[in-house]
């Protein structure tokens, strides 16, 4: 299901506004009152990643095992090199493959899988994103012998039943229309397509209608055979178990899994470069507000400056008191939230500033956001602001890895993106190492100043003439297929 509707009648002070773009709301602080200690800096016991074991099975599958005995649950996260970058012209194929992965195997039909897992209270889902596909599960530890054999079949013998596939595909075709009725859901896809172009990172994860219509269950089966392979996949298990016993179980269950064929080589399209600013205006004729996102290409996840970039971005747009949120929301009252984020992939990434405002304040809000970005370059930040951002990142770090589920995702990410536990163990040190001088260098190197790429979704007739000034203008209608 790609549409997430808010079911709970709760209004929050701050939402994680950039669910789509992958970060949260943001910003500013200039002066600290005297006498406030830097609490986070006083922390001596810095947070370390719990012990884990990493093994490679004979078939090449990498396995991470981490004991975590808080509650009697086991978390499994399996990640395959089967994301939308591998769609190879069949936009939506990786997603549909993941979506139908659990709809039948050699010995279990779709209903049997669902009934078995749900009877046990298992939480499970399969997904595909830009670079990977995966399955995540959590279940009560005493049920592991009922869950693992099924998981084994899903890895090796998914069948992609044509009838089930067609049902899911039909729903997806409608969902692709529905998601455009919620601009915040699709601005990320428009932005990625606009900046990455024909590079795989521009592929819309859920596909386009024209493409999805043509995909058949045999395409999914072929995609599965080519890309769900042990050599480049990872299986992470975190929870209430004993490592030695679990290791044995994993070997027995998963070692016989063999890849079925060699994957086609990933098409290496060069990353685009921009020498001028461009504006994509997406017309939504009944819109009363404008959603906007602008930025440029960013850094890959394993870039050595990753943590330092997060420190600077915390100041710019990574927390509630960040400069962007302070100017656009707190001072000007133009929006419910504004922020910036670095979305990182294996070989590249994006830097995006985003917010939303009513149609008549669109230019005012974008100008203000541009001023803030400009201020980062011309004035930089003072020591107090930097210290506060460092404290914030350090203080908020441990809860990120408090649960077995989040630890499983982290371990999977280390495998996929090529970093290791030093990210966690040296996090505090690396944050503290960002000095004013270093921040200045990071800003110059990683925060774009010009040739910015803008995507706006709103009522084109109302804003077209005013937003032309940001760059070379092109237009689409939100109702036309694709991004």
């Amino acid at each position, binding site marked *: 299901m790609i549409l997430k509707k808010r079911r709970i009648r709760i209004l929050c002070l701050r939402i994680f506004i950039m669910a789509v773009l992958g970060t949260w709301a943001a910003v500013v602080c200039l002066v600290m009152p005297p006498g406030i200690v830097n609490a986070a800096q006083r922390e001596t016991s810095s947070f370390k990643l719990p012990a884990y074991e990493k093994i490679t099975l004979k078939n090449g599958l990498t396995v991470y095992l981490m004991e975590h005995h808080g509650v009697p649950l086991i978390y499994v996260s399996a990640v395959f090199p089967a994301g939308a970058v591998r769609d190879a012209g069949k936009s939506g194929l990786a997603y549909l493959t993941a979506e139908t992965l659990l709809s039948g195997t050699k010995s279990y039909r779709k209903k049997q899988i669902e009934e078995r897992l749900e*009877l046990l209270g298992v939480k499970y889902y399969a997904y595909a994103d830009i670079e990977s596909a995966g399955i995540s599960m959590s279940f009560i530890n005493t049920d592991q012998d009922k869950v693992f054999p099924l998981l084994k079949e899903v890895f090796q013998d998914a069948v992609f039943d044509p009838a089930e596939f067609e049902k899911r595909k039909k729903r997806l075709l409608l969902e692709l229309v529905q998601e455009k009725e919620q601009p915040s859901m699709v601005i990320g896809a428009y932005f990625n397509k606009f900046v990455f172009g024909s590079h795989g990172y521009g592929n819309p994860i859920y596909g386009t209608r024209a493409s999805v219509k043509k995909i058949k269950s045999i395409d999914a089966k072929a995609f599965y055979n080519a890309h769900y392979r042990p050599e480049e996949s990872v299986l992470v298990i975190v929870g209430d178990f004993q490592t030695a016993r679990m290791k044995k179980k994993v070997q027995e269950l998963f070692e016989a899994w063999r890849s079925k064929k060699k994957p086609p080589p990933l098409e290496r399209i060069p990353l685009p470069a921009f020498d001028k600013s461009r504006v994509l205006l997406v017309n939504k004729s009944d819109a009363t507000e404008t959603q906007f996102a602008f930025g440029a290409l960013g850094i890959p996840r394993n870039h050595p400056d990753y943590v330092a970039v997060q420190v600077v971005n915390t100041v710019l747009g990574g927390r509630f008191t960040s400069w962007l949120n302070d100017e656009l929301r707190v001072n000007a009252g133009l929006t419910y939230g504004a922020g910036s984020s670095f979305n990182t992939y294996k070989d590249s990434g994006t830097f995006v500033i985003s917010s939303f405002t*009513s149609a008549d304040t669109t230019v005012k809000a974008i100008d203000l956001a541009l001023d803030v970005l400009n201020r980062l370059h011309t004035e930089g930040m003072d020591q107090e602001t930097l210290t506060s951002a460092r404290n914030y990142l350090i203080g908020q770090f441990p*809860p990120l890895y*408090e649960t077995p589920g989040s630890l499983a995702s982290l371990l999977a990410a280390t495998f996929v993106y090529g970093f290791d536990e030093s990210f966690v163990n040296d996090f505090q040190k690396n944050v503290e190492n960002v000095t004013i001088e270093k921040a200045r260098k990071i800003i110059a190197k990683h925060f774009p100043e010009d040739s910015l790429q803008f995507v706006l979704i709103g009522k084109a007739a109302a804003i077209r003439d005013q937003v032309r000034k940001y760059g070379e203008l092109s237009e689409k209608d939100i109702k036309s297929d694709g991004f």
Partner: protein
Amino acid sequence: MKRFVLILLAICLLAGASPICAMPATEDVHIFTLKNGMKILVLEDHAIPNVTLQIFFKVGSRNEYPGITGLSHFLEHMMFNGAKKYGPKMFDRVLENAGGSSNAYTTENVTTYQDWVPESALELIFEMEADRMGSLALDEKIVESERGVVLSEYTTGYENSDYELLDDQLRSVAYQAHPYRWPVIGYESDIRNWQRLDIKDYFDRYYAPNNAIAVVVGDVTLAQVKTLAEKYLEPIPARAPPRAVHTREPEQRGEKRLFVHKDVSSPHILIVYHVPETGTADYYALDLLSAILSQGKSSRLYSALISDKPLATEISTYMPNALDPTLFYVYAVCADGVSVKTLEKAILREIDNVVAKGVTGTEIQKAQNNVVASFYRSLETMSNKADMIGTYEIFFGGYQKLFTAPEVYRKVTAMDIKTVAAKYFKKTNRTVGVLEKSEGK
């Protein structure tokens, strides 16, 4: 403490994994009441060097009236905009500088403030929470800029969610009298027109220590929390308890129907039934029934309307936590080419089927197993623990109920579920809302 729990858990597992044995246990939660009537609940948890403080004020949109709808939520925003010691912007700046973050939310029933900090900032959050609770500034100029923020929140909510639009309209029809009939965010005209004095009155009436509870979970000791609560929160004077919400929704006397126009690709349908408030005798059976109807792909509605016949693209059921009698929601979106009439008929057929034939033992077992698993999952983070403890204290008549909930759910029988289904899922008790492009002729 941690070691003790692990041993306890091991014993529990040997004994057959009784859900009661999950950590933490009732006796791990400490409760004390300050002289001003404010209740403090504490759970020590040393898993990570952090702590969360969550303060629940017993005020929400149910305490409002036309003219000031949305004020509970607006006041929630103003709580971040300056008090006596920590002036405008200072709350967030000081908190984030100390490595902390915060959020808040407003519902029909409660307004909750949540702080997440490294344990070293524990005293700071007590001081800052006491500052804004005891002496909020409500600066006139900031009221105006914050009005803009909330109007943006109002617009973006409806712009990005058809569900929200339909739900807000539908409640105005399902409820004739009770304040649950207006949206938490309020009516646009009220947001534009309330005055500082309205906010001040509202604050004075509801933000009293005796109208709040605080939950602390994290790397702290009970003694530490006691000292800080006595130092910072206890001096805030108690006030006359706010007047109770006495409006009761009169019995519905026939099906009500609503149509909302919006240019959407496929129709949405929302069906609601009046049901009792959270924690009452029928609550647990209704909650299990909700799971049986829509939780997971093997649930009744999902399999009938999505897996077997492609009638809907999504389906869900839901019952909010509520202090007063509330609604049981059934929500669905039509699949391509399916008329809303067809979908409504199919949903009602499934519901009538439960009323007539009840549910199976396997279905109940599945729903109960999911309750137990969710119970464990809900106790994984400090933040969730604090939220659950506060929620049970306010909505279920005591935090202790959190720990006995799995047992209570286990006692629900097939007959109980059939009985509640028959009692509430009646045509006369139903309101049906449709959001669609055109009403037709």
